[in-house]
């Protein structure tokens, strides 16, 4: 397809990384503000800080490392495709990390006697 010929593969990868990491950050900030425990990785305040840093760091990295942003690069269709791919990748990963961290917190908080198996004779 003409829209997806990805004339600049390096720039496409860089843009995907920008979108992926900043989407993770946006999800954390939104989840913290909306008290959505299914998406939160940390407590609300830490998630807002982490999310904001993730977004800022992504943009700083992208604009400092990519020297080709002022020459014709990705086409409009490529932008959309890469952003959608980043969303499709970031959302399940975000949920999976949230689930795993919640499990770790539950296990860490449970009494030791529950975690340790009874010795068998």
């Amino acid at each position, binding site marked *: 397809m003409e829209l997806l010929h990805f004339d600049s593969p390096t720039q496409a990868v860089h843009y995907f990384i920008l979108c992926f990491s900043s989407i993770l950050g*946006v999800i954390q900030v939104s989840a913290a503000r*909306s008290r959505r425990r299914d*998406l939160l990785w940390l407590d609300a305040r830490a998630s807002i800080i982490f999310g904001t840093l993730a977004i800022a760091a992504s943009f700083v990295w992208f604009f400092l490392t990519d020297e080709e942003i002022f020459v014709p690069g990705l086409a*409009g269709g490529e932008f959309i495709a890469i952003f959608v791919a980043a969303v499709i990748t970031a959302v399940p990963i975000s949920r999976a990390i949230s689930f795993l961290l919640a499990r770790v917190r539950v296990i860490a908080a449970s009494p030791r006697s529950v975690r340790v198996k009874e010795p068998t004779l």
Partner: protein
Amino acid sequence: MNPDVILFRAMNSFVGTVPLVDALTRAIVNDYAVPTIMALALVGIWFSGSEINEQQTNQRAVVATLIAFTLALAIVKDIWNIYYRPRPFSSEEVKLLFYRPTMSSFPSLPVAMAFCFASGGRLANRRLGLALYVLATLFAIARVYAGVHYPLDVIAGAFIGAGAVQIVVRLAHIANPFADRAIALARRFNFA
């Protein structure tokens, strides 16, 4: 003399006088910064809302924005098919802060997209929408200052983008069932 050209020359003539302004313009005018920020704002709106009703309202706003963007894109491309306006650098002496796009100058598709997303953001959250409108306006001004568009191009783009959202809002009785199905599908796959 065409007032559009006069205003363009007046704005573009300042390029090179204040390096900080030029640097800020280059940071805003590129294809990556503002469109990505706008799209990220929609992602944030999609996942916001502490109650299910609030989440649904926000997600409907996102779907409406995407429908409006498709409409705005179609309108801009149809206009391009009918009328081609050369870019300022094709016929003027321009201090250019950007590369040379080849598509018609009128109307501005990036600005249409920016105002479409800003209008859509306002449907979900007024304060966020206001912030996005400010960003979209700066983007539009930057496109003229950088020598990429005439003022009328970005004004037309802004009206098309914002107008497309208003059309979708007026047709909410048609758009909402479609939006609700899309949201239900997204929830089934844990994307909402």
